[in-house]
């Protein structure tokens, strides 16, 4: 009994010390790094750079970001939003390489414009 208790205690101390040292680093390194932008709206559509749109066989998508205050750090969660229309931007207002996109309920909320890793719906991210 005593040996089990001692062994357990040592394991416990090890875990606690490990996470005390590396907990924060682990938090930041296990998440994709993204660049977030509040995009511009022109004529009913929102202007986004090319890299912000993800093309998939069943449609095109963007990722919006929602922030909430967590216990230790701000938690940013992405939501995958299906685009109803995606056209190359004709106005050239922000320069070359932009798309004018539309999606349901989307009015220029904070959006991911660049990501270090492929994103999934509901994933947590870190702002670069």
């Amino acid at each position: 009994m005593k040996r089990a208790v001692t062994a357990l205690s040592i394991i416990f101390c090890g875990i606690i010390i490990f996470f005390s040292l590396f907990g924060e680093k682990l938090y930041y390194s296990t998440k994709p790094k993204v660049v977030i932008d509040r995009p511009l709206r022109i004529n009913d559509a929102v202007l986004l750079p090319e890299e912000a749109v993800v093309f998939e066989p069943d449609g095109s998508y963007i990722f919006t970001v929602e922030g909430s205050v967590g216990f230790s750090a701000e938690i940013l969660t992405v939501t995958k939003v299906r685009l109803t229309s995606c056209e190359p931007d004709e106005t050239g207002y922000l320069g070359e390489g932009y798309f004018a996109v539309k999606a349901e309920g989307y009015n220029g909320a904070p959006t991911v414009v660049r990501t270090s890793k492929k994103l999934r719906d509901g994933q947590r991210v870190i702002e670069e």
Partner: protein
Amino acid sequence: MKSQRKILPALRTAIIGVFALLFIIPVISTAVKSFSFDGRISLGQYWELFVTNFTYLDYFWNSVFYAAAITAVSIAISLPLGFLFAKVKFKGRDSLFFVFILVMLLPFQATLLPNYIQLRDFNMLNTPLALTLPMMFSPFAVFLLRQFMKTIPDDLIDCTLLETSSVIKTFRYAILPQIKPATVSLAILIFCESWNMVDQALIFSMENEKIMPLSVILGEIPENVRYAGGTVYMFPIIMLFVMFRETLEESMEAYKL
């Protein structure tokens, strides 16, 4: 008649056993629930606790620091005073000791304000000192140490004193060995009490959340990691309890006046 004799003890054991299990259920339930995350059995809750809520461990170490500091210091400074009350005769000793007992029995309600006033005047509020100093001078340690030391035979002390007048040597060879298990239990009790400190943290560090111990912060962590947080928090105490169970129980019997 004979069968009745056999049933009664077994029944008694069973009933008490059931009660005992009921008592443990909160602990077991908290531990078991800490291993479920998103509906599956996994260690996910712990990962979420240590990584996403990485400041949890900061508060954990706060508690460790407070409990360790309070235990070590209060026992160290209470040993001589306990000995004074136990073996050194002087006028008014027993009435003075009664005051100690009185203050020890007074609940936090009564001692909180005096402590607070003094801390405020020393400008120690909202610092770690506020959460350690008043408890280091708690009369509880003095009381128990005096009870323990009273059982040391006088001749032993007199003999030791014939050979040396050094206080340290006397303590080391005559006093401490006699009360070692009791002192260990006292240390554990003080540790557990400080680990559980709530009232003081609420008042003395009202405005500085960073130095608060885990006991108060535990209520604020997100709900999905509560059970893991609780289990980690009570794990050291349970380990201490299991290791020193018999010593603890024997010494608790000395609580009497």
